[in-house]
């Protein structure tokens, strides 16, 4: 038996242990490669009709073409604007409420049960109502994203706040801190790194709701771009729209991760 080889297999199948970096990279590359291989295989040999599944190179070509057109950048711009407005609105109201609910039991009684209740109502179901109330302008789209993010955000921030060790608060009391100081000098600084992680997740939700909002009533934005492509059976553009949203999400996610590392170098176990 080949002993070294055996050792590699043992190390690669060990539960929750680290594996060599090159093997990890190998796994990442192989999945992407396989995806393209299958996609290419199905489309080039025409197992699936080109109308339903365009070839990878057609999509790449279309992507490059889209990036060359100012109109496409306007779609990206308006979508990013909607996502950030909805997200920021949810943050500005949701974060303080979440901190409040995670800090004071009495405040929690006002905030949490209601949020738990509403968060199970699908945000997409609110769209008709929002259209009645706010029309089909920008406000409506931002509101859909807001509703999708807001209640989740409150619950997660409240939970993050609640997880801060009580001993940390007790220690601050014995060091002379009063309640206001405990909130601003202990709870909030302790919360920040977890809050960033939560915001990162919520940002993902915001993109999901963007597409929902734009699929229904819009005449610009990436969701609309996809919708319009569907009408003309332009599957290449549908692919382009989806990939661009994915890329934007990835860029924002990486930005959050880097910011987290830069802003909170003190976090135990890294970020």
């Amino acid at each position: 038996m080949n002993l070294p080889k055996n050792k590699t297999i043992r190390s690669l199948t060990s539960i929750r242990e680290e594996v060599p970096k090159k093997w990890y990279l190998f796994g990442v590359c192989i999945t992407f490669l396989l995806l393209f291989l299958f996609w290419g295989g199905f489309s080039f040999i025409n197992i699936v009709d080109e109308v339903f599944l365009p070839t990878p190179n057609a999509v790449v070509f279309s992507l490059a073409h889209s990036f060359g057109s100012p109109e496409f950048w306007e779609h990206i711009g308006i979508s990013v604007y909607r996502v950030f407005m909805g997200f920021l609105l949810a943050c500005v109201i949701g974060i303080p409420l979440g901190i409040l609910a995670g800090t004071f039991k009495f405040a929690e009684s006002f905030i949490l049960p209601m949020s738990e209740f509403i968060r199970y109502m699908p945000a997409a179901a609110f769209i008709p109502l929002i259209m009645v109330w706010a029309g089909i302008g920008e406000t409506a789209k931002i509101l859909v994203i807001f509703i999708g993010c807001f209640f989740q955000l409150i619950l997660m921030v409240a939970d993050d706040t609640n997880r801060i060790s009580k001993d940390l608060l007790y220690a601050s009391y014995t060091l002379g801190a009063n309640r206001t100081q405990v909130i601003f000098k202990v709870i909030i600084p302790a919360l920040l790194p977890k809050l960033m992680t939560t915001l990162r997740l919520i940002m993902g939700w915001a993109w999901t709701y963007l597409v929902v909002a734009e699929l229904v009533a819009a005449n610009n934005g990436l969701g609309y771009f996809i919708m319009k492509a569907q009408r003309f059976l332009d599957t290449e553009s549908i692919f382009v729209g989806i990939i661009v949203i994915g890329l934007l999400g990835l860029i924002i996610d990486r930005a959050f991760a880097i910011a987290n590392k830069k802003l909170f170098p003190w976090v135990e176990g890294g970020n």
Partner: protein
Amino acid sequence: MVTIVQPKVVVDPVDIEIEISGLSKIYETKNNTFQALEDVSLYVKNEEFVSILGPSGCGKSTILRILAGLEEATSGSVKVAGEEVQGPSVKRGMVFQSYTLFPWLTVRENIEFGLKLKGVSSKERKDISDKYLELVGLERFANSYGKELSGGMKQRVAIARSLANSPEVLLMDEPFGALDAQTKQSMQQLLLDIWKKEKTTIVFITHDIDESIFLSQRIYVMDARPGKIKEEINADLQLFKNGELVEVDRFMKLKKHIITLLKH
């Protein structure tokens, strides 16, 4: 036989720093009540090092938390420096078993935390934190964050952070409970040195018999369910010299006595 258990000495009331009398604590849950402490009375003299020793769940930490003002007594009186305890205060510093460093602050900023709240000027703060960094031997780590420190070092920062506030009393809730044996020993020696230098009154909670004998002048041995004081033991017997056990027989006798006490 060597008298280990000594008759209660009459203490000059002027010397008394902490006085607890008839302290009871009852926790009420939905369908039953639990008596954590029953009629606990004890005193601690000024500049004295007293341990409260008992099995887990005997309520020894509850006594300390009530002393710190973090919990309220159901009945009885708890006085520190002649004043009834009402809520937490800088006068009573506390070191916890869990690591309670503020992870977003450096070691120095941790030590200065209480001073900053009090509005002490930055120059004065630096002088004080320098002094306590040196006292606990962490000068080199002044600008490190908690994540770079070992468990023992974190507890040294916690001690320094409490002392920087110059409290009248230092309350310690099994501070070395999570440390390995070697670190624990060196921390105990360090604590004794600090106590001798700083002349702080210390109340130390532990379930470790050796630790309580090594550190304290007097030990209150507790009984569980309900938690009450079983016996007060004078442990200031000079059994150790420079941290080494020199009076093995007397130490063993005292230890055996406490073991029997804890077994009933």
